[in-house]
């Protein structure tokens, strides 16, 4: 892990592959959080007043 990282050079942008991977992962996580159903919250349940 101590060898220098590779870099993506696109125009004036210069970013390490590890950093790009991390940011990509963040975007994926955000997208998944939007889409994936959250457990325990079915759509139509009986109404309950706050206990």
């Amino acid at each position, binding site marked *: *892990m*101590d*060898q*220098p*990282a590779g*870099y993506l050079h696109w125009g*004036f*942008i*210069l*970013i*390490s592959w*590890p*950093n790009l*991977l*991390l*940011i990509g992962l963040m975007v994926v996580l955000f997208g998944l959080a*939007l*889409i994936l159903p959250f457990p*325990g*919250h079915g*759509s*139509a*349940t009986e*109404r*309950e*007043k*706050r*206990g």
Partner: protein
Amino acid sequence: MTNERTPAHLDKPEVRTVPYDLIKEIAIAMVVSLVVILGFAIFLSSPDVPSVSIQSWSAADPADFVTTANDELAGASTTANYGPPYNNGTGSVQSIGPVSPQSWAGVHANVDQPHDFVINPLKQAAGNDSALMAAINSYETASADQQGKWHDAYAKALKDAKVSNGQVAVASGDYGPVPQMMSRLLQLAQTGALDGLLLSSDHFYQTDYTKPLLFMNDGGYLAGLAQDQHLTGTQWGMMNETGLYPGQTWLWLYTLWYQVPPFNGVSNADLLVVLVMVILTLLLMLVPLIPGLRDIPRWVPIYRVIWRGYYASRSQELS
């Protein structure tokens, strides 16, 4: 603006609530995050490129060390001319028009490069070395003009210096006592004594590395190592880490400014970038009060995905 009562939406009888265990949630979050962290730590470890010392620098690149030391003694190095907080130079003082907080703050971390980096360590290490003391004496009693001539000539000669066995040799010329002083300083550096003298010359306990760091920063060796690791300013270095590790990705916007005009061509880039980032940070804090910025969430329908259950059940009620 603040609402002291029970939150309004929980008062309304029509707000449907569901069981939600906050404590269990944080417990699960702690366990899952610990597993992830342990995994990364076990399989990837963490970066630790060893520090550079005056000793390792002078051994790896004696010519660079001596060139830098010559500049320090001449008072010609970058930090010798820096300005506040180290001294009263002007070389690195930044301002925006008449506004210069750096100048206003004054000198509070005083460093006297010729004495702190060269003369005092040499005097302390001279001991019984009368030849060295004589050389130092003849340097100190020479006129500033004479000293300057020696330094200029020596700096020029150093460009073609030959290094063998860790020693630096230059073509013969009129350099006065400077080469003798530099040679002895190099010896101190390579034995590790200079690291100690720069740090603890005032007192025993010391945690302030200002002097050795400024000295190293004036040379080219440290920057060369940094360049290899993509850590320099023009390489978006602020965001990067040594090796294959992720760096400080949250600094992406801070370092971006240094890559673009006008920041990438001016000497007060640091002050400008700090100003821009302070303003942007304030804007971030004040988003709720800024028209336009606070309305973007309504225009970008991400919220409709997050609350799709709510909108679906509401349109069922309305139909």
